[in-house]
């Protein structure tokens, strides 16, 4: 009989033992995958948030701007430059920006803010800014009105916790309240009626600004209100002007949401007294894989001359990257401990199996089976168990991960606030299938291979006579 066939039959001679061993492998793979997916997914989500809503994948800046973000470090935005960048195969669009700081003042409230001069339409293409306009805001008044309408008590009770919260669309509000998709139309009607927030998007050359949701609450600003911005302009001129708030945007990153003011870039140039100048040119790309971004950066570097400088998202988010690296390491340690526990679990069952079958091995050797053949059969058995565990682990983890990817877990209530305090969006997102699957499978396979050594060793040194007496 062939070795593999014999091994397969052996497995099912003692079903319970096989299943217990396979189960320990299954849990190892399942939990490792889930943890890894959650961790990698969160990083990915966080990066996408910050890259897509703020830095972009690649920017062109004046060479000193990154280290010294003052309004004097600007450069001329010319059609020739735009053409040069757009001629790159991976460039989709260029988005001019003027970025500087100012003091925003309303009445007796003052706060330091980040001013972003943007091209309203192009910026919308890059970061979907228009979609971030606040659609509903649950003011105390709105909540009390909504409570009068016909809604399930469960939702009404939840409303109090959402005081002053803003939502930039139907979807996040529906998820927060736990309303099912099919009920959305009816259930959201009172919100549309009482909590709709008046908002307009920026119009080029018009002296209106968009402000972050949290900033608007701090400065107690509403659409149509006026705020004063004071700063130092280009070449130490005075920059001071009044602006009308035309809308409020809710940005996923709480840190930026708390300090951002958007205005059309031509208005911003006038404010800072820097006509025709910008501080950075964000490039929206066709392919955003690391490889194509790196290739694009080196292509642009040969094409553009100083004082212009090309800067990639890695360099722009170094702090976040190193934070994530530290977090990633601690995640790996936890997974390492998980593997250690699992490894001993597997080893334990293997040990038992070897002890249980000592007599059987003795008989087999006594009737003439070669020890090497016996070792091979046992090894194949172990591999079967391993493959069984790994495959079933992946098979169960995969749907869970995919569900988590397409329907991220949105944390609500008090826990959400903790997330926001750390500057993170309260969302747990999974990473879809990627190389990390392979790694986890590989590590578990290695653990099994190590575990095989013990029974192999036992078999090869088997003393037939004494084992028969066992």
């Amino acid at each position, binding site marked *: 009989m062939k070795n593999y066939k014999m091994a397969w039959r052996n497995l099912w001679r003692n079903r319970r033992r096989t299943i217990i061993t396979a189960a320990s492998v299954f849990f190892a793979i399942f939990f490792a995958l889930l943890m890894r997916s959650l961790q990698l997914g969160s990083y990915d989500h966080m990066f996408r948030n910050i890259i897509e809503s703020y830095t972009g994948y690649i920017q062109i800046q004046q060479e000193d701007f990154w280290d010294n973000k003052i309004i004097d470090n600007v450069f001329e935005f010319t059609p020739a430059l735009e053409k040069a960048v757009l001629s790159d195969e991976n460039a989709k669009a260029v988005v001019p920006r003027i970025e500087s700081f100012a003091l925003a003042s309303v009445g007796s409230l003052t706060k330091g803010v980040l001013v972003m001069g943007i091209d309203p339409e192009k910026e919308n293409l890059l970061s979907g800014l228009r979609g971030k306009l606040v659609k509903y805001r649950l003011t105390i008044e709105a909540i009390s009105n909504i409570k009068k309408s016909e809604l399930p008590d469960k939702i009404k009770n939840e409303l109090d916790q959402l005081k002053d919260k803003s939502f930039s669309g139907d979807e996040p509000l529906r998820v927060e309240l736990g309303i099912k998709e099919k009920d959305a139309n009816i259930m959201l009607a009172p919100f549309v009626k009482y909590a709709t927030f008046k908002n307009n998007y920026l119009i080029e050359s018009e002296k209106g600004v968009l402000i972050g949701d949290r900033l608007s609450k701090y400065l107690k600003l509403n659409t149509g209100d006026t705020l004063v911005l004071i700063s130092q*302009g280009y*070449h*130490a001129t*005075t920059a*001071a*002007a009044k602006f009308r708030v035309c809308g409020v945007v809710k940005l996923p990153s709480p840190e930026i949401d708390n300090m951002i003011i958007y205005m059309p870039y031509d208005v911003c140039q006038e404010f800072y007294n820097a006509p025709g100048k910008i501080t950075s040119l964000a490039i929206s790309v066709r392919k955003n894989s690391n490889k194509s971004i790196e290739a694009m950066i080196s292509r642009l570097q040969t094409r553009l001359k100083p004082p212009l400088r090309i800067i990639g998202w890695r360099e722009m988010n170094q702090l976040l990257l190193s934070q994530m690296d530290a977090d990633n390491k601690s995640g790996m340690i936890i997974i390492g401990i998980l593997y250690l526990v699992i490894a001993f679990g597997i080893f334990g069952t293997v040990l038992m199996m070897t002890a249980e079958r000592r007599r059987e091995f003795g008989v087999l050797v006594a009737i003439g089976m070669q020890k090497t053949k016996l070792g091979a059969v046992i090894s194949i058995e172990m591999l079967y168990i391993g493959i069984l565990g790994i495959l079933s682990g992946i098979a169960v983890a995969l749907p869970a991960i995919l569900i988590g990817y397409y329907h991220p877990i949105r944390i609500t209530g008090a826990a959400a606030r903790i997330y926001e305090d750390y500057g993170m969006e309260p969302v747990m997102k999974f990473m879809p299938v990627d190389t990390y699957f392979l790694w986890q499978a590989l590590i578990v396979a290695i653990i099994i291979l190590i575990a095989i050594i013990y029974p192999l060793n036992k078999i090869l040194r088997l003393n037939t006579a004494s084992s028969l007496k066992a």
Partner: protein
Amino acid sequence: MKRTTSTFTLLLIGIINCLVLSSQSLTATDIIKKADENFNGEKSSIVTMSMTIIRPTWQRTVEFKSWSLGKEYSLTLITAPAKDAGQTFLKRLNEMWDWNPAINRLIKLPPSMMSQGWMGSDYTNDDILKESSVVKDYTHENTGEETIAGRECYKIKLIPKKDAVVVWGHQIRWVDKKDFLVMKTELYDEDGVLVRTEAGSDIKTMDGRVIQTKIELVPTDEPGNKTVLVIMDVKFNAPLKESFFSQQNMKNLR
């Protein structure tokens, strides 16, 4: 009797001697006092000035008119360039306010802004506000004579008195012997490192006084940076009252 007379005569001679000597060679304090009175001696002044801020890659000129009464009160109106024109600064004793017509706001300059340059120049707000008295707050020491820009000068070292509120470790001033003009000032920090140099030139007679109409300020630690003040017009002893220096008036100046 004779002995008394001789003692008296001796004393008299001594006093006369002293007087003659002092008129020949002034003490360092006298020199600084005379130089200080040269510009700050009058009760009030109205000055029209331009200030050019020079940086390695650019430069910019601001014009302004300034009313002042003693060292305690001053009011400054920016007249050019157009974007800054209309902005006013009021100084009353130790406080400073800024009025900006573009935003209709009166802002009291906070302590955090004191070390920032005024209108982007090398003069800090603190320089303008905490103008200490070179006569009262320092002890003076004559350290020799040097010629600056063709004029013979006393070289005087100023060391701040212990209780004086002064940011400098010490100063060295070169005061012209003829008109008592401060030709050059070197300002040092507590460690004796040169922080900035101020030099006066373009000596002219304005409203009956001999003054320097060009003052250059060069900070040592920022190469290529420089601020040049040019006095275009001066009126001394204008009839200004303390009430002129009010927040109300900041908004009415044209």
